[in-house]
């Protein structure tokens, strides 16, 4: 457990000291969400109706872009090799890195949601639903991103492959996330929250094994 926390702490320190990265991500998230209204038009009621879709698409894109960082630099400088032969199983290392990555990318996105809520005309309830659905959904996005990042970690020109692999896999997260925010049918929101939570838990529990398997292949 101490080794697990040490890896989380190391990733957090690296992420915070490199500076800028986290702010850039939040900036990207906000910019995507403000570019869409320019395309849709300044119709406030329409924007309020589309707000769940806008928030979730922006979060998905921001998460997708940041996922490449998950293993790349550690793979390039050999840290991953050291971790692989350490006492902690590689699966746990992956889980620790996913947790660190989520704190560095998922939490800032959630923290920036009120800005979007203000601009998109969401009320307090909608903002609460948005923040809560992102809180449940972003760990699943990080998990699916981890598979994509792990299988493309050794590629020098694999920039677009990982998003192309990850996006279809993340589709259920998007469906349940927006479903939880904007119930089309009364009572469907709770169902969507439960499904989203189940999906996130299953993804976070199972995917470290898949990602670790891919990292082992990459390290050979």
């Amino acid at each position, binding site marked *: 457990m101490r080794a697990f926390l040490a890896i989380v702490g190391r990733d957090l320190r690296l992420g915070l000291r490199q500076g800028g990265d986290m702010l850039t991500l939040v900036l990207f998230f906000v910019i995507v969400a403000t570019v869409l209204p320019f395309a849709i038009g300044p119709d406030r009621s329409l924007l309020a109706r589309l707000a769940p879709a806008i928030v979730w698409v922006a979060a998905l894109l921001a998460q997708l872009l940041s996922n490449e960082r998950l293993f790349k630099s550690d793979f390039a400088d050999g840290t991953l090799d050291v971790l692989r032969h350490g006492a902690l199983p590689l699966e746990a290392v992956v889980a620790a890195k996913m947790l660190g990555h989520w704190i560095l990318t998922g939490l800032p996105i959630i923290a920036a949601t009120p800005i979007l809520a203000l601009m998109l005309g969401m009320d307090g309830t909608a903002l609460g639903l948005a923040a809560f659905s992102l809180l449940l959904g972003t760990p699943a996005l990080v998990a699916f991103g981890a*598979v994509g990042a792990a299988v*493309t970690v050794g*590629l020098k020109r694999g920039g677009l492959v990982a998003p*192309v*692999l990850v996006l*279809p*896999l993340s589709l259920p997260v998007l469906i*349940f996330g927006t*479903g939880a925010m904007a119930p089309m049918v009364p009572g469907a929101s709770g169902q969507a929250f439960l499904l989203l939570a189940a999906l996130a838990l299953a993804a976070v529990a199972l*995917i470290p094994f898949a990602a670790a398997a891919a990292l082992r292949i990459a390290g050979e």
Partner: protein
Amino acid sequence: MKRLASVDTQAPKPGFWTRIAHPGLFLGWSGHLVIPLILLTAGLMAWGLYLAFLASPPDYQMGDTVRIMYVHVPTAWLSQFCYAVMFVSAIGTLVWRHPMADVSQKAAAPLGAVFTAIALYTGALWGRPTWGTFWEWDGRMTSTLVLLFIYLGIIALWRAFDDQLKAARFVSVVTLVGAINIPIIKFSVDWWQTLHQPASVFRLDGPTIAPEILLPLLVMSGAFSVLFLTLHLVRMRTEIVKRRIRTLELAAARAAGGAQ
């Protein structure tokens, strides 16, 4: 070649599966199968097309457009069967690191993508006269589209690697994750679709299919399945030969003084 042969004779007594799955021996026995499989495919396809276009009645509701089904349903079935083949091969690659599993996986991916694309295309053509639109955000169509994206992503991953042996194992990981995820995607899309569209759309319910429509459907399904087997076998043979050529080229380059 000589060295390979000597290894084969030294092996004490290779089991049935070992003999069948050895790439060199595979090239040998599968070579005898290609022509019969092609003939079988052509025969079944001719019979099925005859049944589908001439010997079966038009549907009383949909008229002649029902004949699209004889291509649509078999390709839709194969779009899922190909993934099952890739799934089993992926386990073979990861667990036994068997080169034939790699080859089978690589050969199946583009076939699956093409069958999925044909299923979507014929579905759109069929949807126009019966539903009045080429594309409907229907649960089945949407999840088939996502399946196509997954196939294309896997092909993209294959192409991103130079070392195909390594690529096979990365692709296996993605294929397995995808296999677990495809039912979830299917479920989520159905859930999403029932919330969006309570309106009922046309459904061809299983038990109501008349026997004169069922027979051509079954024959065409058989024909397309044998077509898949044929193409899969030919693609596997091509891939093995390609890998051998590459190995020989590398050996020749080394012999020519590439590595001092």
